[in-house]
């Protein structure tokens, strides 16, 4: 679909605005986390896990590309411009995902909890009124299935290992919980998104379904459930971020900024 076709679809402006906001949230979550994952390249605890985690990083960036392409079809800039040449205030990811990785325990925990959320969120998009989104999400969910398969045993293993691993995991729970609540926000356009049938559930239902899935895993890992997560000061879904996002964008776009006109 080209820009012209998108315009010809005659998307009503309210619909289009809510759809664009939703696509930015999806793209920016995946791109932030994909980039943070990629920072582990060569540093993961074992070589096998290193290769697997890098592969997961590429999957996440690939999913971001899908969402950025849909945005481009709707008249936004091309995917590379959106990824490399967009100020932090225009990003709509949850602030949890822009934070530095921390140690391996925190990396695994954050990724698992996010992927669980993304699984619930994409389930809510399977019957989206925007057909290209519904179709793409069905494919993305098949790839994400493996991510959960990979991350869950890691989480349980670290938490049950006792000693240093368990202490680090418990510390990670506290740190991640401080910003986790921001994931469930759908930003200023939440009502419009639901009204137009773009997404099936709002933040409360997303959270309820996520909690139903996360709690049994915590029990299996022997981790104490900390209760509802805190909502961070900055709502990334409304363009408010920590300085870590500016740093992330600067690092990620370092090469592209070096010669914006270069052809790859």
């Amino acid at each position, binding site marked *: 679909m080209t820009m012209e076709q998108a315009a010809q679809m005659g998307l009503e402006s309210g619909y289009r605005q809510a759809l664009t906001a939703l696509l930015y949230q999806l793209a920016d979550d995946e791109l932030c986390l994909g980039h943070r994952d990629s920072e582990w390249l060569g540093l993961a605890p074992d*070589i*096998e896990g290193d290769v*697997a985690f890098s592969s997961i990083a590429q999957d996440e960036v690939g999913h971001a590309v899908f969402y950025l392409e849909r945005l481009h079809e709707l008249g936004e800039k091309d995917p590379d411009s959106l990824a490399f040449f967009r100020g932090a205030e225009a990003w709509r990811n949850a602030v949890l995902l822009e934070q530095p990785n921390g140690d391996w325990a925190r990396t695994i925990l954050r990724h698992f909890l996010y992927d669980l959320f993304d699984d619930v969120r994409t389930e809510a998009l399977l019957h989206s009124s925007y057909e290209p989104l519904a179709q793409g999400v069905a494919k993305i969910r098949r790839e994400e299935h493996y991510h959960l398969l*990979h991350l869950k045993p*890691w989480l349980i*293993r670290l938490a049950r290992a006792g000693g240093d691993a368990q202490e680090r995991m418990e510390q990670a729970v506290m740190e991640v919980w401080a910003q986790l609540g921001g994931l469930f926000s759908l930003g200023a356009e939440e009502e419009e998104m639901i009204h137009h049938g773009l997404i099936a559930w709002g933040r409360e239902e997303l959270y309820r379904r996520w909690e139903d899935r996360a709690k049994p895993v915590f029990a299996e890992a022997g981790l104490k459930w900390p209760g509802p997560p805190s909502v961070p000061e900055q709502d990334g879904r409304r363009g408010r971020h920590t300085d870590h996002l500016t740093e992330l964008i600067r690092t990620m776009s370092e090469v592209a900024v070096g010669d914006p006109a270069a052809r790859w």
Partner: protein
Amino acid sequence: MADRREYEVFEVFVRKKKTDAHVHVGSLNAPSPDIALTTARENFLRRENAVNLWVVPRGEIHETPCDEGDWFARELDRKYREVSGYSENGRLWKTYRERALYLEEIVQDLHPPSQGNRPRPRRERT
């Protein structure tokens, strides 16, 4: 700490298609079979598809002795076990199929002189 085994070696077998057998592709270190399976997927199937994976702890594989050459000794002639004779079949088949047979030759084929005493129930009934 030396005897505390956190990681072990798993041998990895990939089945690429449902009609294929599992083929050994290499080995990896993992702390458990489930983690071995997930890392095997990305380490051996990053660019290829498959329908099934096996991981087997190396310690569970039983092998023949490496330094006992007689285990595989094959000293005498065993041509009789080989199937090379079958390679002639194509040529023979072609030779006889391609030649038209006369009626006499067919009769000759049904009543070979050397088998004259053998009972032939079908023919005796007629």
